């Protein structure tokens, strides 16, 4: 796009194509390009790279300009609940977060809240051993709310700094599973007022428009304080976080860029917006 000499129709069409292919969605892409057409005319911008810079600013505003941070409690236990659809990267992201928080000097405890899927507890257990943090678990088929309760009691007793609760993957369309996640949240809230201090929605960067529906329904069920956008080391851009931030006011807090424990970075709106056009 930077090769264009003038801001003609094909320039704006190509911008729209880039946004749509980055999964921003048709509506958001058309709106952004339409706004850009108007603003470039108003500001008498006639050079491609200036127009692109203006578009990037628009997108950054939608994402929220400043780097969103985690709501970590000072000298008190922070409880983080992690939710999302099947296979998004919840368990792996929890391991990455636990590693980072431990490196920062926090005492971290994990709760194996997925009591449904084959070897889900074993998967988190391997990670907890690898990282060197305690894991609270129960047998397969146990009530996940009971595991959450157990883990919270243990975290309080052991004076942990952070408790991260893993949950089973679930489609937002499954009402009984969404009720289950509400119950887990209620149990945490009841046992520690203010908990969970963060409820993170894990979203796979290759997800299409369905991500908006996911964000809406998970937000409705438990409230979502932030998104972990995973698998950005692929070719997908994860653009659906832009309409999600704009319409639901939910910020991206972390990005996953690989399968190892170090592969988690804080979300930076400017860097992210730059990669949309790289």
């Amino acid at each position, binding site marked *: 796009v930077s090769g264009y000499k003038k801001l003609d129709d094909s320039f704006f069409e190509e911008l729209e194509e880039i946004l749509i292919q*980055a999964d921003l969605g048709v509506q958001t892409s058309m709106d952004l390009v339409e706004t850009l057409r108007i603003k470039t005319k108003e500001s008498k911008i006639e050079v491609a790279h200036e127009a692109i810079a203006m578009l990037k600013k628009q997108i950054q505003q939608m994402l929220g300009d400043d780097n969103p941070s985690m709501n970590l409690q000072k000298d008190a236990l922070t409880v983080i609940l992690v939710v999302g659809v099947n*296979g998004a*990267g919840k368990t792996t992201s929890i391991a990455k977060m636990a590693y980072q928080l431990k490196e920062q000097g926090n005492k971290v405890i994990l709760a194996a809240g997925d009591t449904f899927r*084959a070897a889900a507890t074993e*998967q988190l257990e391997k990670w907890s051993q690898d990282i060197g943090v305690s894991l609270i678990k129960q047998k397969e088929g146990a009530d996940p709310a009971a595991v959450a309760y157990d883990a919270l009691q243990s975290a309080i007793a052991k004076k942990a700094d952070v408790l991260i609760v893993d949950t089973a993957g679930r489609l937002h369309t499954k009402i009984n599973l969404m009720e289950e996640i509400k119950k887990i949240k209620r149990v945490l809230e009841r046992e520690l007022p203010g908990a969970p201090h963060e409820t993170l929605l894990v979203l796979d960067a290759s997800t299409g428009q*369905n991500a908006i*529906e996911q964000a809406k329904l998970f937000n409705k069920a438990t409230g979502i304080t932030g998104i972990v956008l995973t*698998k950005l080391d692929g*070719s997908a851009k994860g653009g659906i976080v832009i309409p999600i931030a704009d319409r639901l006011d939910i910020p991206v807090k972390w990005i996953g860029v690989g399968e190892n424990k170090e592969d988690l970075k804080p979300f930076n709106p400017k860097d992210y917006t730059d990669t949309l056009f790289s």
Partner: protein
Amino acid sequence: SLSEKIQHAFAGLKKKGTLGEDDVMKALKEVQIALLEADVNYKVVKSMMQDIKEKAIGKRVMESLSPAQQVIKIVNEELTSMMGKEQASIVLSPNPPTIIMLCGLQGAGKSTTCAKLANHFKKEHKKVMMAACDVYRPAAIKQLQVLGEALDIPVFFLGDSVSPVDIAKGAIEKAKKSAVDILLVDTAGRMHIDEQMMDELVQMKQEIKPHEILLVVDAMTGQDALHVAEHFNQGLDIDGLLLSKMDGDARGGAAISAKAVTGKPIKFLGTGEKIGDLEAFHPERMASRILG
């Protein structure tokens, strides 16, 4: 729904009398938007709209008493034909074991699908075995073992410090000795742009010569589905596609993109987390789902 939008686009025009090309183009814009919102890839939508436009700008629509209905029919026909007509199934080899290899991105549903397929063939009275070739993901081998145990289907494994190719070869030897009819090879999830991991799959294909290579694609995948399917097909010449998590409310445009770019048939649908949640693919049903 798209049908309603098309009806609406034409509703205002009926009073004018005869339809012009511009009128039909207005309705087609709705179709283009609907396909993109259904996650069909931008390039695939562009080429589909060419075909749809050619059929729509003609007597069939413009001289029809119900042009909206005609346009809806054209779009439906286009989608259904793109989905593939054949009731594609897995053809078993006359020299057992038939080797089926599953591949795809991280978290797509391969391991779960592996068990579902194993169960599907076991119910058809075939002797089945699974091979645990994911040596990277923590407890991946355990996951397949737990699934196999519940189904009373043997899982061949050599732990996670043996190469996936060697595990697969060992599985084939064991399968032949145990008169196994079908061997399902589960592989680790990987990015299509990870050259080293894609080379590993190419090497596995060369060494074990699977009869069937299935790419598992998450039904909620967006624009990237095209690139994923293209790369896996270029590297492996896959035999079929399998769409997982169809029990959600994703429109599933990824199916069209993957099918369009590979030309390979969609063989099965994953429709839930339980072992029995595996269904045959029906092109017309998929077409109407994508149209919403």
